[in-house]
C-alpha cells in the first residue's frame, strides 16, 4: 500500500515532462496493475452483478454538476475524460485525447482526439463535441460546482479540425491539464448538453464511459449497465475492453448500522462508507479492505488572521507546534497518516516537510511566553485580562481527532472550544469572524493550495489575511508548466505557508473500501474516487 500512496518528486516530474513532450505516447505499456487489488490473483471473470452501498445521495448523478463523493462513485463510471491521471505516479496520460500539448506559459491547451470512440447514443466523440461539453459546463455556471471553476478564464474553445480542439485561457492555468482528467470535465454526448438541468441530474444523459445509466431512483438506488463495444479504457487500468461487471447497483443506505449489517450479511457486496469503528470487522473474515489517501489539502485548522489573537504569527506557530499529529492519526483507521505537509502525500508535487512541521511543545510554550501569554489560574494562558481561548465550529466527522487536539493544546495553555454542528450552521458560523475553520479539499493537483490559501480571487483566502510573500509563489506555480520549476515553486509556497502559520495541518483524509471476498479489483482512480471499470465478481 504505502508505495502506492507515498509519492516522491520523481514521478511528479514525469508528469510535466509528458506534458512538454506534446504527446505522451498512447502505447506506453502498463504491465503492472495500476490499482489496488482484491484478494486473489485469478483471471477476471466477465459477467455478474455487484451491489454497492453509498450513504448519501443529493438526487443528482450528472458528472458535470456534482461534487459529493457518493454520487461521484456513480457518475465517474459513466464518463471518460480527455486525459487520465495515473494513480501511482500522478502523471497525466492520454485517454480520449491521444495527444495533447500545453504552451510554455500554460495559457493554451491543444488536444487531439482518438478515433473510433463514441458516446452511448452512437455519436462520435469529436472535437466539436468537446466544445459543446465545455460550453454546456460554462452555461451551467455555478451549478457545475467543480467544472465551472476549472474552466474559469477560458477565452476561446476552437475546433481546429474534426479531431483537434484548442482551449485558450486569459491567464496561465497550469491546473487545467489535470482538470481534463476529472469526471467534472468528463464528456457527455452533444444531445445531453441540450437536456434540462433536472433531466441531466436524473441520469438521462448519454456518456462516453464503460457504463451507462440503466435506472436511477433518487435517494434509493442507481443501476449502471456495462456498455458493449466499449474498447477505449485508459492505459492505467488493467484492460481496455468492455467492463467485466454486467451491472452495478448502488443502494443508498443512510444509517451506518444498517450499512455494516448489510455488508456483513451479504446483502451488499462492498461499500466505501463503512464507519471507522466498524472497519476492523471487515479486515479478513471473508472480507478485504483497501485504503487510499485523498490527494489535496490535508485536514487543517485554518487560523483567521483578521482576528487580533491569531494575527500574531507566534500564536499560530505555537498551535502548530503543540499538536502531536502522530497521536491524532492513531485515532483513525490503521491506514491513516498524520499530515506531513500542507498537502496530503498522494497529491502530485507532494514533498514531506516534516522538518518544518514538527511536534515541539517546548518551542510552543516559548513562543507563547514571548508573545506575552502567561499562565493563568486555570492553566489557560492570559494576557491583559484576556484568556487564550478559541472556538472552532465544524460539521465533519472529526470529533475524536479534534478532542485530542483540544487536549494537546490545553497542555501548553491554549483553550480550544469545539462546536460540532450541521453543515448549514457551520457555514453560517464561519462568516469571517470565527477563530478557526476546519476542513480539507480533495484534488490531485497542487494548485488546490492556491484555491484555498491565496489572497487573490478566485480563492477562498481561508486565513482572511492580506497579501504576503506566499501569494506570488502560489500564482507562479499556476503559471508554470515545466515540472521541475513548478515543483520548486510549490515546495517554496508550502514551506512558507507552514512557516508563517497560515496552515496548521493535522491529518490526511483517506477513503477505505470494504468488500466481500467475491469482489475483485475494485479500486481508486488518482483522485481517490472509486473505479469500477476493472472490478469483477467471482461466481
Amino acid at each position: 500500500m504505502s508505495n502506492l500512496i507515498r509519492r516522491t518528486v520523481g514521478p511528479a516530474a514525469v508528469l510535466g515532462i509528458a506534458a512538454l513532450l506534446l504527446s505522451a505516447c498512447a502505447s506506453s505499456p502498463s504491465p503492472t496493475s495500476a490499482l489496488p487489488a482484491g484478494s486473489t490473483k485469478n483471471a477476471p471473470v466477465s459477467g455478474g452483478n455487484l451491489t454497492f452501498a453509498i450513504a448519501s445521495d443529493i438526487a443528482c448523478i450528472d458528472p458535470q454538476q456534482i461534487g459529493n463523493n457518493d454520487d461521484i462513485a456513480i457518475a465517474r463510471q459513466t464518463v471518460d475524460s480527455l486525459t487520465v491521471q495515473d494513480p501511482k505516479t500522478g502523471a497525466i496520460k492520454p485517454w480520449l485525447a491521444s495527444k495533447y500539448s500545453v504552451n510554455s506559459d500554460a495559457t493554451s491547451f491543444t488536444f487531439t482526439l482518438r478515433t473510433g470512440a463514441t458516446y452511448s447514443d452512437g455519436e462520435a466523440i469529436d472535437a466539436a463535441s468537446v466544445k459543446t461539453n465545455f460550453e454546456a459546463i460554462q452555461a451551467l455556471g455555478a451549478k457545475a460546482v467543480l467544472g465551472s471553476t476549472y474552466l474559469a478564464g477560458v477565452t476561446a474553445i476552437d475546433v481546429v479540425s474534426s479531431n483537434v480542439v484548442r482551449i485558450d485561457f486569459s491567464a496561465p492555468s497550469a491546473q487545467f491539464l489535470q482538470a481534463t482528467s476529472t469526471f467534472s470535465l468528463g464528456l457527455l454526448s452533444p444531445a445531453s448538453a441540450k437536456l434540462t438541468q433536472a433531466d441531466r441530474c436524473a441520469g438521462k444523459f448519454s456518456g462516453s464511459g464503460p457504463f451507462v445509466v440503466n435506472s436511477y431512483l433518487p435517494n434509493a438506488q442507481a443501476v449502471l449497465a456495462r456498455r458493449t463495444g466499449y474498447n477505449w479504457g485508459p492505459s492505467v487500468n488493467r484492460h481496455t475492453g468492455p467492463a467485466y461487471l454486467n451491472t452495478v447497483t448502488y443502494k443508498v443506505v443512510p444509517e451506518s448500522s444498517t450499512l455494516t449489517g448489510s455488508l456483513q450479511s451479504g446483502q451488499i457486496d462492498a461499500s466505501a462508507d463503512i464507519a471507522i469503528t466498524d472497519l476492523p470487522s471487515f479486515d479478513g473474515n471473508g472480507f478485504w479492505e483497501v485504503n487510499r489517501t485523498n490527494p489535496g489539502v490535508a485536514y487543517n485548522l485554518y487560523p483567521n488572521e483578521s482576528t487580533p489573537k491569531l494575527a500574531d504569527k507566534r500564536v499560530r506557530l505555537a498551535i502548530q507546534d503543540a499538536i502531536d499529529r502522530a497521536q491524532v492519526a492513531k485515532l483513525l483507521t490503521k491506514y491513516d497518516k498524520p499530515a506531513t505537509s500542507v498537502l496530503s502525500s498522494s497529491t502530485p508535487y507532494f514533498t514531506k516537510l516534516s522538518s518544518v512541521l514538527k511536534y515541539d511543545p517546548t518551542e510552543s510554550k516559548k513562543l507563547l511566553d514571548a508573545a506575552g501569554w502567561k499562565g493563568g489560574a486555570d492553566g489557560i494562558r492570559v494576557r491583559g485580562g484576556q484568556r487564550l481561548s478559541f472556538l472552532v465550529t465544524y460539521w465533519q466527522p472529526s470529533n475524536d481527532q479534534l478532542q485530542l487536539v483540544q487536549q494537546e493544546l490545553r497542555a501548553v495553555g491554549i483553550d480550544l472550544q469545539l462546536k460540532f454542528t450541521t453543515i448549514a450552521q457551520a457555514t453560517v458560523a464561519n462568516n469571517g469572524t470565527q477563530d478557526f475553520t476546519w476542513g480539507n479539499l480533495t484534488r490531485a493537483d497542487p494548485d488546490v493550495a492556491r484555491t484555498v490559501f491565496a489572497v487573490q480571487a478566485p480563492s477562498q483566502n481561508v486565513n482572511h489575511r492580506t497579501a504576503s510573500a506566499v501569494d506570488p509563489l502560489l500564482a507562479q506555480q499556476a503559471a508554470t508548466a515545466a515540472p521541475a520549476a513548478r515543483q520548486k515553486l510549490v515546495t517554496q509556497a508550502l514551506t512558507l505557508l507552514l512557516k508563517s502559520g497560515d496552515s496548521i495541518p493535522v491529518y490526511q483524509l483517506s477513503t477505505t473500501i470494504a468488500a466481500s471476498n467475491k469482489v475483485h479489483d475494485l479500486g481508486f482512480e488518482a483522485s481517490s474516487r472509486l473505479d469500477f471499470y476493472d472490478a469483477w465478481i467471482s461466481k
Partner: protein
Amino acid sequence: VRRLLQGVIVLWAAYTLSFFILYLLPGNAAAIAAAGSGDPGSVDPALVAKLRHEYGLDRPLYVQYLVALGNALRLNFGNSVQNGAPATQLVAQALPQTITLALSALPLALVFGVGIAILSNLARWRWLRQALSALPLLGASVPGFWIGLLLLEAFSFNLHWFPSLGVNTPIGLVLPAITLAIPTGAYLAQLLSRSLRLTLAKPYIEQVRAKGASEKRVHLGHALRNALIPSLTLAGVLAGQLLAGTVVTETVFSRVGVGRLAVTAVGARDIPVVQVIVVFAALVFVVVSIIVDLLYPLIDRRIVVGRSALAIA
C-alpha cells in the same frame, strides 16, 4: 363549508410558518450546495453569491414569500434547489412508497392498539392485565430507530428472513411496517384503554352487566363503541404520527419516501421541497379530520354533523 374554510386556513398557516421557519434556520441552500461540493472545507464566498442569485435567494424576504405563495396557489411550488426538478414531482415520486408503508403499518397498529386496549381490561388474571397495560407505555417510549435496528439485527442480519435494504416487495415491507406500527399502535392503545376504562366505570355498563351480558359482550358490544369516539377524534394526530414515523423508518430501512425526502430537503435547506411536504402533511391532517367528522354520526347517533365541534366538546 366552514370546515373547508378552516382547512384552507390550516394549509395557508402551514405554508407560511414553514416558509419563515426555514428562513430563520441558519444556513442557506447556496452555501450548502457550495460546501457540499468536493469536500468539507470553507466555502468560496463568490460561488455562494453566484448560487444565491441563481436560486433567487438575494431578493427581499417578503418578495420571495409573496412570489412563492402566488405560485403555490397555482400549485407551482418551484424547483428543487438540489437538482432542478419540480418539487411537487419529487414528492409525488416518493409518495406511493410512503403510502404503501403507512397503509401496511396502519392495520398492524390498529390490531396491536385495539387488541392491547381490550385485553388489558378484559384479561382474566391481574398480572396479565398489568403487564398488558404497561406495554403501550413501553412501545411509545422506545425510540423507533432502535426497534428498527433490533428487528434488522435479528431477522435480517442473523436469520436472513427479510432483506435489510429498501426493497419494495411484500417481504421487504414486513420489518418497516412493524417498526412503524409499534409506536403508533402503542399510542392508540394508550388512548383507547384509558377511555375504555372510563367507559366501563359508567353506570350504564352496570346495567348491561345486570342484564346478564357476558364480559366479552359488555366490552365489544357496548363499551368499545363509546370508547372509540375520543380515539377517533385523534385520528388526524395518528395520521400525523404515522407520517412522522416514516422519517425514522425510511432512514433505518433505506427506503425511499416522503420522510427521507424531508430529512434531506431540510438538511439542504431545499425550501420548495420542504414546503410541498409540509403542505401535503397539513392536507392529510385536514382531510382526515373532515372524514372523522363525517364518521361520528355513524358511531353515535346523537351527534349531528355541523354541530360536531360542540357535541364532542
